[in-house]
Every structure is written in structure tokens, then in C-alpha cells.
């Protein structure tokens, strides 16, 4: 997938920002410190010395002295941290998103140091915040202190975290001096999507039952009711002797062509922007057995079908942030993709699928290879297909909802201008499987941007939309409905199945 111009510029700005931050990290004086030092020097030159201004003399020397002192303290503190601060390697933990998770790293806390303070942030993986643990259940004060001294992280994106890069910042209380150093930690964190309020998914079970759906490739089954002319080699016991006695023609009975119900379910998780709720729905469906007894599962980055729960959950984890998409060790902030130089973190199959690249800051890249997965899964016979899909099509341009969703990277004269990315692969898959594809879309609430008056737009910044883009979701649902695909929208926040009435109400509320 080619990046759009806007994405290219965003990537360039991000690179410049990272480089600027790298430079600032090794220069001990902040912009404020430079300005104050410069102001003090100019004051000395033009007022204190040139015009014998004694106040400027005192103030300028005081400021320069304070600047030198803070720089010295910050440099000494940083060197001390560089020597002493280590993050233990080898931690292995399973966790879920939005849950405080201990990393065994002990961040420095300098209550005693004069004028100096220390803070830290996590650079890799992105969308990780330092959290406070809930230790209300810990009675032992010593254990409580020990746990509070450790770092707890809240991870917003599912995935495999194999190393953490922290930026520890030593600064003074005036903001004149600042130095930052990187602390790396190798560990194994498997982060599953948080299920939220999704507890049971009964509707998926009915998808799996599917008694109205039959397939001509089903196993031979049923009464022998059909007749055809005898062919040499047919067993004599199948000859219909009464018809032979009546007409003199040799006919044989054959079993009716099986149209048995499909009892197997194959499910696939498509990765894309804002797909956490969808991944959570897939997790709940697997853990609650909502796919029935006989199922196969695959996910972006794991196109090979799997039928056991741990492997399926691991596939869900792999479809998110991937630990092998890592920052370079030289600290340049560059992201290295897979070793074949293809630019994809996960690439497999025949290359017909689309590659999802997260533009929301996570930087992970996955290949949605639905066709390849279905080919492998259906080689063993017909099955119901459940596709877990994100609520926003890739390449969604929200400013043009009236024309349907449009891929921002596809030329408008292309036949795929209105159908590209994973939606097109879904539509192609639906064409040959009439009625057997069901789509489950997970959302974290739905909301449309509120209509605002001119005064409100001038005075206030647009409030962040609390939930997934309703207009994108509506167009996506219409597209899937037009292709005859059953769609189920589940809300992770409330645990509800969102029907047309819910979406209509959300639209009216906006």
C-alpha cells in the first residue's frame, strides 16, 4: 500500500521531531535556559557595563550563576543515572490492554535532590502510559511499598512487546537545564485486547449453527432417492428392479446430493485502524466458544488457520503491535521492518491481500490475507465464515461520505477507487460464498462529530469524538449490506449489539 501525501509529510515531520528530540536530549540547556543566558549576557553588556546599571549587574550575574548551577546539577544527576540505572531483562508476562502491568523496572525517584527532578516516559512501544497500580488489596505495607516503587504501564494497543525503550529526563525545577537518557529493557509481554463489557456473544453461535445454509460440496448424505441410467461398474444392489420390470430400462438409485448444514466455522481477524474493539470481540468469541465446537481461526499476520485456543489468542496478539518492528539501536528513531526489506512486518501468502499500516501512531504493519486464509480453511470442506473487521475501512476519507468510502491512495479512475483494501477482499470473498460470510465489527461507542455554530468553531477547538466514526461505519455497513453480507456491530463499552436504531439515535444525538 502506498502512503498518501499527507502520510508522507506526517512521517517526515515525525522524523524531524525525533531528530530534534535526539539533539535536545544531549544538550543540557533548554530553549528557556538559552534565552535567559542570552538575555543576562546582553543585560550585562548593554546595561550593567555600558551604563553602570547595578541592578542589571546583580540580576544578570545571579541568572548566569543559577543557569550554571542547574546545568551542573543536571549533568551530574544524568551521569549518576547513566551509571546506576538498569532495567532487568527477561521478564515474561501476559496482560491485556488498558490494565496496569508491572515491568520490574524501578524508576528513579529523587525527593532528596535539590533543584533537580526526574521523570520518565515510554517511547517504544507507542501509546503506552505510566500508570498507578491498584494496590487496595495489598495489606502488607512493605510489599505495598515495593510494588509502588516499580513501574506500571498501561498499554493501549494489543501486541507482542519484546522490548521497551524509555526516555528518562533529568531537569531542574526552573526549566533551564534538561538532559535525557534512554533505558532499554528486553522482556516478553503478550498484550491481549481488553474485552471491556463484551461478555457473551450469543449471535455468533447462531452464525455457527447456520441450518439454513447448505453447500453442494457437502459430504454425501441422506436417502437414496435419485435415479440415473445404469453405468457399467455400478453395484447391482442399487439397480431399481421394479422400474426395470415395468419399463425394461436399467436405472440405479443414488444418494441425494448432499445439502447438509455446515457445522464448521472459520473466522478471520482483519487488522486496521481502530481495530482494538474488534480484536476484543474476536477474543471473547474464542474464549466463550461462540464459534461453535468446530472452528478454525486466522488473523492478520497469521494466515495459517489454527484450531486451538492458545494459538488463536496468540494470533490475535500478533495482529496488533509487533515486537519485531523495532526502533534502531542507534537511537535514531528509525523503524526497521522485516529482514526481506519488503516493508511489512508480517507478510505471507500469495501477496494478494492488502497491507494495513497503522497511522494512529502505533506504526505496526500487517497483511490482511483473507483470501489466502479462506482457501486454506475451506480446503477441508464448507464452513460458515465469520470475519472480524475494524469499524473504519482502510483509506477512509471522511470528508467524502456522500460518495461512499474512497480509498485515499487509489486513483479515482481506477476500478477499485471505491473498493480497495480489506473491504474489497471481503466483497470478493462474499461473491463466491453467497450468504455464508458474516462480519462482526467491534466499536468503542459510536459518535458523529457534533454540529457546531460559527461562534463555537471560532472560540473552541473541536472536542474529541468519543467513539468510532459513525459516518465511516454507516457507509461501511451500507456497502456490506449491498453485497448481501450479514453484519453485527458490537460495542465494547456497553456490551450491546448495535442495531440500526442505535446508529440512528447516535446520528440524531450529534
Amino acid at each position: 500500500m502506498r502512503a498518501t501525501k499527507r502520510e508522507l509529510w506526517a512521517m517526515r515531520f515525525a522524523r524531524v521531531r525525533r531528530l530534534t528530540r535526539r539533539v535536545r536530549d544531549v544538550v543540557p540547556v533548554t530553549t528557556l535556559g538559552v534565552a535567559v543566558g542570552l538575555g543576562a549576557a546582553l543585560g550585562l553588556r548593554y546595561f550593567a557595563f555600558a551604563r553602570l546599571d547595578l541592578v542589571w549587574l546583580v540580576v544578570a550575574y545571579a541568572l548566569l550563576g543559577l543557569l550554571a548551577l542547574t546545568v551542573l546539577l543536571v549533568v551530574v544527576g544524568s551521569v549518576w543515572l547513566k551509571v546506576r540505572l538498569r532495567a532487568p531483562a527477561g521478564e515474561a508476562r501476559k496482560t491485556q490492554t488498558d490494565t496496569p502491568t508491572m515491568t520490574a523496572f524501578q524508576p528513579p525517584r529523587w525527593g532528596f535532590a535539590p533543584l533537580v527532578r526526574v521523570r520518565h516516559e515510554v517511547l517504544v512501544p507507542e501509546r503506552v502510559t505510566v500508570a498507578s497500580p491498584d494496590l487496595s488489596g495489598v495489606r502488607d505495607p512493605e510489599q505495598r511499598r515495593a510494588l509502588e516503587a516499580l513501574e506500571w504501564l498501561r498499554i493501549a494497543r494489543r501486541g507482542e512487546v519484546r522490548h521497551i525503550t524509555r526516555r528518562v529526563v533529568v531537569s531542574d525545577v526552573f526549566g533551564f537545564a534538561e538532559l535525557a537518557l534512554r533505558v532499554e529493557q528486553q522482556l516478553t509481554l503478550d498484550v491481549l485486547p481488553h474485552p471491556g463489557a463484551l461478555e457473551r456473544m450469543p449471535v455468533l453461535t447462531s452464525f455457527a449453527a447456520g441450518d439454513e445454509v447448505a453447500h453442494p460440496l457437502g459430504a454425501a448424505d441422506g436417502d437414496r432417492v435419485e435415479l440415473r441410467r445404469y453405468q457399467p461398474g455400478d453395484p447391482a444392489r442399487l439397480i431399481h428392479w421394479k422400474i426395470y420390470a415395468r419399463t425394461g430400462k436399467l436405472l440405479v438409485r443414488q444418494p441425494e446430493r448432499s445439502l447438509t448444514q455446515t457445522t464448521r466455522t472459520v473466522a478471520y481477524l482483519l487488522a486496521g485502524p481502530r481495530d482494538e474493539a474488534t480484536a476484543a470481540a474476536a477474543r471473547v468469541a474464542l474464549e466463550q466458544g461462540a464459534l461453535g465446537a468446530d472452528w478454525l481461526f486466522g488473523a492478520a499476520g497469521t494466515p495459517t488457520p489454527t484450531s486451538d485456543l492458545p494459538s488463536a489468542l496468540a494470533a490475535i496478539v500478533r495482529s496488533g503491535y509487533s515486537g519485531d518492528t523495532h526502533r534502531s539501536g542507534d537511537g535514531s528513531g528509525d523503524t526497521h521492518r522485516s529482514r526481506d526489506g519488503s516493508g511489512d512486518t508480517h507478510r505471507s501468502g500469495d501477496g494478494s491481500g492488502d497491507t494495513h499500516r497503522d497511522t494512529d501512531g502505533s506504526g505496526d504493519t500487517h497483511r490482511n490475507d483473507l483470501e489466502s486464509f479462506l482457501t486454506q480453511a475451506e480446503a477441508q470442506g464448507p464452513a460458515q465464515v465469520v470475519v472480524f473487521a475494524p469499524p473504519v475501512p482502510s483509506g477512509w476519507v471522511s470528508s467524502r461520505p456522500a460518495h461512499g468510502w474512497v480509498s485515499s491512495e487509489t486513483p479515482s479512475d481506477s476500478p477499485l477507487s471505491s473498493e480497495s483494501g480489506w473491504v474489497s477482499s471481503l466483497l470478493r470473498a462474499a461473491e463466491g460464498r453467497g450468504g455464508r460470510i458474516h462480519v462482526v465489527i467491534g466499536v468503542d461507542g459510536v459518535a458523529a462529530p457534533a454540529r457546531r455554530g460559527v461562534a463555537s468553531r471560532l472560540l473552541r477547538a473541536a472536542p474529541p469524538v468519543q467513539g468510532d466514526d459513525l459516518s465511516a461505519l454507516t457507509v461501511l455497513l451500507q456497502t456490506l449490506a449491498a453485497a448481501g453480507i450479514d453484519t453485527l456491530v458490537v460495542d465494547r463499552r456497553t456490551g450491546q449489539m448495535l442495531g440500526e436504531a442505535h446508529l440512528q439515535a447516535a446520528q440524531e444525538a450529534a
Partner: protein
Amino acid sequence: MTNPSRLHLPTMLRVCAYFVTGAVLALPLSRAPAVVAAALGAALGAVLGGRLARSPYRTIALLGAGLLMGVLAGAVHTLLLSATSWSAWLGPARAYRTADALLAMGVLGGGAFALRVLTSRRAWFAVLEVLVPVFAFTQLVVAHRDGAINRPFEIADPIL
């Protein structure tokens, strides 16, 4: 991303710095009530600015509010000085001092409000938070330059 610990001491120190700077800026121009009003206005502006900087209002709208505060104070000042009923009620001297105090409070409050909004939203505007007090203090005693260490008289006389 960042550890969400908040330091309240720097916030309080900053308000104190605004208070003192407001007083110092008004000192050469006004009498005591106006100086106190200016200091209070600057401190209040700093508190309000810090709070509203965290609101969704646009920076330009907040700066406009600060400017409006100063303009309104000027308008009220003009109105009070031209109104005979006001001076008849309080007496000419007290009416003049009160109007001056309102003007100092409004102008310094609006200025401090705008400065605090700017420094909260754009880190590099913190330079202004350092330079404004420095210039305020140096302007207070600017008369002593070029060797005139016996000036300004109101400060030097008690010492000498």
C-alpha cells in the same frame, strides 16, 4: 506518556511572582491602592489563565479575552473620571485613586492572564515569564544608571 505527577509548589511560586511583578510594574506610576490592585489583578490573572489554558477554548480567543479585560478597565476608568456623580459621592481624590486601582487591576490582570495562557500552551513563551519580571525590576531603578547611585531618591534616600 509522562508520569502524571503535578508539582503545586512551582504553581504557587509562579502566582507569587506574578503578584510581585504586578506591584513592581505599577509602583512608579501609581499610588499604594493601585499598586495593591495591580498585584492582585496580576495574581488573579495568572490563576485564571492557568486554569483556562486547560480548557478547549482557542488560544486566540483567550488572548482576546485578556485584551478585552484591559480595554474594559480603560473604558471604566475613563467613565469614572468623567462622571461627576462618582467624584461627588467619593470625593475627587478617592474617586481618582479608585479609578486608577480599577485600571491597574484590569490591565495587569488582562496582561497576566494572556501571558499565563501563552506560557501554558507554548513552552517557549516561558521566556517572557522570566524577562517581564527582570525588566520590571530594572525599570524600577533605572534612574541610578551612569553612576547616579543616589537615585531614585525614594529608594536611595532611606538607605543613604
